[in-house]
């Protein structure tokens, strides 16, 4: 188990749970970021943050602080 922000670039992980921060949780849900979904960490911004993730076919940029709220398992 680790946090989404700790997933190395290029690696894929499975979402376990999302921290109970209601605002961000809903945003994540809208984008299909829900438990049991596969997420791949793609690339970082030139300044190191945010990071772009591949989620169900679309690329979503998420800040480190927000990615910390997602528990994942590397696969």
């Amino acid at each position, binding site marked *: 188990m680790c946090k989404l922000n700790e997933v190395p670039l290029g690696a894929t992980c499975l979402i376990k749970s999302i921290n109970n921060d209601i*605002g*961000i949780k*809903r*945003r*994540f*849900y*809208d*984008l*299909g970021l*829900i438990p049991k979904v596969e997420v791949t960490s*793609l*690339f*970082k*911004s*030139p*300044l*190191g*943050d*945010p990071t*772009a993730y*591949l989620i*169900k*076919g*679309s*690329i*979503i*940029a*998420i*800040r480190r*602080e*927000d990615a910390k709220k997602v528990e994942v398992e590397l696969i």
Partner: protein
Amino acid sequence: MENIKITLMGNPNVGKSTIFNALTGLKQHTGNWTGKTVDTAMGICKYNNKVYEIYDLPGTYSLFVHSEEERVARDFLCFNKSKVTIMVCDSTLIERNLNLVLQTLEITKNVVVCLNLYDEALKNDINIDVERLSNILKVPVVVTNASKGVGINKLMEEVEKLAVKSINESFITTYDKDIELSIEKLSKHLENKKININTRWLSLRLLEDDKTLIKSLNQELNYDIYEDDELIRLLDKERKEDINEKVVSQILLNAKNITEACVSYNNKNYQERNRKIDKILTSKITGIPIMLILFLFVFWITITGANYPSELLSNFLFSLEEPLYNLLSFLPDFIRNTIVYGGYRVLAWVVSVMLPPMAIFFPLFTILEDSGYLPRIAFNLDRFFKKCSACGKQALTMCMGFGCNAVGVTGCRIIDSKRERLIAILTNSFVPCNGRFPMIIAIITIFFVGLNNTFTSSLLSALLLVLVICFSVFITLIISKILSKTILKGMPSSFILELPPYRKPQYLKVIVRSIIDRTLYVLGRAVVVAIPAGIIIYILSNVYIGSLSILTICTNFLDPFADLLGLDGVILFAFILGFPANEIVVPIIIMAYMKSGVLIEYESLASLKEILVNNGWTILTAINFIIFALIHFPCSTTLLTIKKETKSIKWTILSFVIPLFVGISLCFIVTSVYRLILLI
């Protein structure tokens, strides 16, 4: 016969605006990024002798409201009963789009699902069983490639069918037994209330305690649920903690199952090419330099390309002056002079000097926008904005500000947090809009590059312009930071931004359309603002009180203060008169310098330079002019938009005062330092 109302909705950036344009023939501005359409637009579509009113809603990911656009979209669906709803989906992202489709089907059954960008899906080996999808959802499904106009007729065919005969039963998400029981009880109560909203859906939202909907119900239908004792009692009994999560998960699960049943992805790595481009455009080493080079390139083309058409337009417009003058011979001399040497000359000047750069810059920028590059700018720069406790999407609203600050201010709706949105609104005018670009370019060329019109000199102008833009971004960041430490205190909130796939812009269409649009826009503004301004300034400089014209009295009055800023009274006065539109600032300055209030014919930048230098302009004046042009106060249109967006006099006044204060301070500091150095 009454017009038939049609709602157009869907996820952000699925081509809704393109469909809207294809249906209505309107020219809603389109772009490849999330949040392009922030307001509801309406257009008319005639099909088979019937008139359809098409309402284009802002793109939303869901109808569970947590932002302004989502509220607008949901309330529209709920309260503005349209006959048919067209759900536009991105064929390459079916699952996520289905999430919204399933939520919408809970409110209205009369839906046509439109799978747009279908060719992109085919190209990426995504196979969609359209018939099966239609059978599962029990609504018609149409495939389109809106940018090429493919499928639009079929879409209207289905819309027409549903307009005549509504769908009675479509796919409905079923929830846990517990929830279903609660829905049943509430529905029974609500049905007696005769509310014209799907009671099943309304029950769910009330169970979730959706405060925004409760408020809207009260406003739109005059139904205050808190006065309905029985309902409140029911809700107290039936409401459960985690109901919202269960509902959301169930819908997402259904979207997933339906997608698995209807869509097959044969090529798992279909975004390979996109990712290769992204690696270059967002990498640590090349990301930011490429961004600067792109801007440099756009500016360079603008500067080089504008010279010749400027001259041509000027020759043409000034050649019309004499015939016009003769035509008006029936008028008294003073009025005739005022109209021709005041109004018409300023108009001709604004059109010939301002129009070409705008008409070149705008399509170039639109191409950049269509390609999907702009969200990458926000991605690249987000860290800076986070450090200032602001949102990276502010970079997008700043980009919109290049076109027009009023548009940039409206665009700030894409920022979810209210605090961060206000920061973006208050600082938007620091980005030079299309109306200010040409004058900044002119001054840069005259005073810092030279007029020899070679390849290197135009490149140098563009380079300096990039520096000026970097400066304005820098000021924006500083002020954003100061705002978040003072009157808009707070921590950065979350930032989640979709990076759309790169798409090939429709070059020809974009260029033709934006040149026409820009030309009309500039001409419109020129007629409305430049002519009256020209007339006013002519009168001011030709009506004398004692031995001085009113204009001289005004500028003399401003002179001492302006001198502290390294400017002069005329420049300051021109910015004040330029409040309705910055395009007229330079012509006013020239008219005032000519004393008689007559604007010289625009021949070349050389003649402009001569006038400015003869009236005491130095490098210092030029620097301060550029600073003040960047940072003074928003134009009247922008201010009105700020008032509309913030619904607050306080923020409107602050958005006027803050840039003015910053601009004056900067000019004062620069001037004092410069003069101090000269003393030593």
